[in-house]
């Protein structure tokens, strides 16, 4: 039937989109209840098994990791929301931004940072000198790393995705995988210890890049200790990760809600033609989206480099997939959902590690089982769209 006759028959309204995957799909309320119940039971199991102190520490560790997942997940959800692309390179932008921060700050006793080498200004020293110095160091490293990562994201979109915007869905998806490999290759070339003499190849596969004993900022300081020597220990470094992540995500949510660019992003995501008719420049808006998503991933990357002892050139692949799961769990396209999803997935990992013998090696399996379950039971996730799309 031609478009013209279809219109004549009155087929103007698009057929209602099927939003639920399977017959066993559940309502959002049921889904939330079940989820909360499962988490509570697992938590209790942990406490029974390991005692409140250990359980608390594991949960806390899960939340720290979850904060990083959340920061990455936001970028997936932003980009998906506006161009319906799963940006597979996003996880690698996260890794790259961790390297950016190390490049800027240096590692105590291992490597001089950019500022030390070119301006004689030692950021590590500044960070270790006093609390005020630490804050100042963060105020230098975070914005610069975020801007570098943001520009990386903008460049990726410009080079690899823009021309494919009206191509079949599969084309940019494949390019995205390609960009991911490209970035990992670049990081492998630059950030892996060189191959031993006589061996072929650029570097030693599997080798990780050290970020120093304490990450690049020495903050082993214990902030709170709840319940004495067997209680929950909250390190300053950990607390900082979560606080920074929350601040960054709330700032982003506010930006998207209230700023002009944020409104343009939402409008473009909901109806691209109409956004243009309102005078919104789509290309610029999409660039802004990539910038913001990548900058948030950079917050995760910098925090990661501060907190963990090594960075591996290809860790973005795994982090990216896990964060993507978080975005789906929260309801892809929904920023708050991505944040919550990130923390939940962090908890899922914590449960896996403590409740399953040798759980560390099960963590990925469990996370992806969660992805599959969400996709079949509740494809719209925790906070997926609940508004009828009649417009």
């Amino acid at each position, binding site marked *: 039937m031609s478009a013209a006759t279809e219109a004549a028959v009155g087929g103007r309204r698009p057929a209602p989109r099927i939003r639920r995957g399977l017959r066993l799909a559940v309502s959002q309320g049921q889904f939330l209840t079940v989820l909360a119940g499962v988490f509570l039971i697992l938590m209790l199991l942990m406490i029974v098994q390991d005692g409140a102190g250990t359980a608390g520490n594991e949960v806390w560790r899960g939340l720290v990791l979850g904060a990083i997942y959340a920061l990455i997940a936001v970028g997936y959800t932003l980009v998906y929301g506006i161009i319906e692309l799963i940006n597979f390179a996003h996880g690698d932008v996260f890794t790259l931004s961790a390297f950016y921060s190390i490049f800027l700050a240096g590692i105590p006793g291992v490597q001089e940072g950019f500022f030390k080498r070119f301006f004689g200004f030692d950021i590590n020293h500044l960070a270790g000198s006093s609390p005020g110095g630490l804050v100042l160091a963060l105020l230098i490293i975070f914005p610069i790393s975020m801007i570098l990562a943001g520009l990386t994201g903008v460049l990726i979109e410009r080079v690899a995705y823009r021309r494919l915007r009206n191509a079949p869905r599969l084309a940019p998806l494949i390019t995205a995988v390609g960009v991911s490999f490209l970035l990992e290759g670049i990081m492998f070339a630059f950030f892996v210890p060189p191959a031993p003499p006589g061996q072929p190849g650029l570097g030693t596969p599997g080798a990780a890049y050290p970020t120093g004993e304490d990450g690049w900022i020495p903050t082993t300081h214990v902030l709170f200790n709840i319940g004495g020597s067997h209680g929950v220990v909250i390190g300053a470094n950990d607390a900082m990760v979560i606080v920074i992540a929350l601040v960054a995500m709330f700032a982003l949510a506010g930006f998207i809600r209230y700023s002009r660019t944020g409104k343009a992003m939402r409008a473009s995501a909901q109806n691209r033609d109409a956004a*243009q008719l309102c005078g919104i420049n789509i290309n610029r808006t999409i660039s802004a989206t990539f910038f913001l998503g990548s900058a948030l991933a950079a917050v995760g990357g910098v925090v990661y480099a501060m907190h963990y002892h090594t960075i591996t050139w290809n860790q973005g692949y795994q982090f990216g997939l896990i964060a993507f799961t978080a975005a789906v769990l929260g309801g892809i396209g929904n920023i708050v959902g991505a944040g919550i999803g990130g923390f939940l997935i962090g908890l899922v990992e914590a449960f896996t590690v403590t409740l399953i013998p040798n759980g560390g090696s099960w963590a990925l399996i469990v996370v992806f089982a969660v992805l599959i379950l969400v996709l079949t039971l509740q494809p719209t996730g925790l906070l997926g769209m609940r508004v009828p799309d009649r*417009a």
Partner: protein
Amino acid sequence: MALLEVDAVDVFYGRVRALQGVSIEVDEGEIVALIGSNGAGKTTTLRTISGLVRPARGAVRLAGKPIHTMGAEQIARMGIGHAPEGRRLFPRMTVQENLDMGAYSRRDGAKVKHDFAWVYSLFPRLAERRRQLAGSLSGGEQQMVAIGRALMSRPRVLLLDEPSLGLAPILVDAIFDVIREINGEGTTILLIEQNALIALHTAARAYVLETGSVTLSGPASELLASADVQRAYLGM
């Protein structure tokens, strides 16, 4: 010189030609109607004017200035407001936010405030529902938001694509009253309408489009009297 000129425009969708040598002129302060059967190319004409579709040949000029090479967002800023076919609202934004997006490229905050009041006075229904999500409005209310949003840019030319589509007869009359009111306040209007009778009673002049070409044009009163138009579009 006409305020809006579509000059011998050809438009293709892939290899299919949708418009062939279409020329339309709209003078400042006029209401001009575009009528024609389904698939004639009416929507395509408006989308070409607002830059969502590029002409293969020909030109579109606003106040003598060629605009067909500009991006749609630039054309919108030049002063063309477009309430598109199928409304195209931002469904997960409120009525107020949708209208606000219409004023996106304006910097004159005080006047924007005044125009909110104006649009809400044209459509009191919207004032009651300003906090409601646009996606949950009724079809008629959505149409009001679409028109209101286009008005919020304070366009020099307002393009309306079937403003009466799906509305109850009483609401159709109300919408056309509003269209006359908007025009009375100085906005030039080019509108598409399936209901040729009401279109020809509202517009000063009209064009008839058939399979991508203009086949008839002239003062609305003459078209109303034309035997061809009466047979094909007025069901007489």
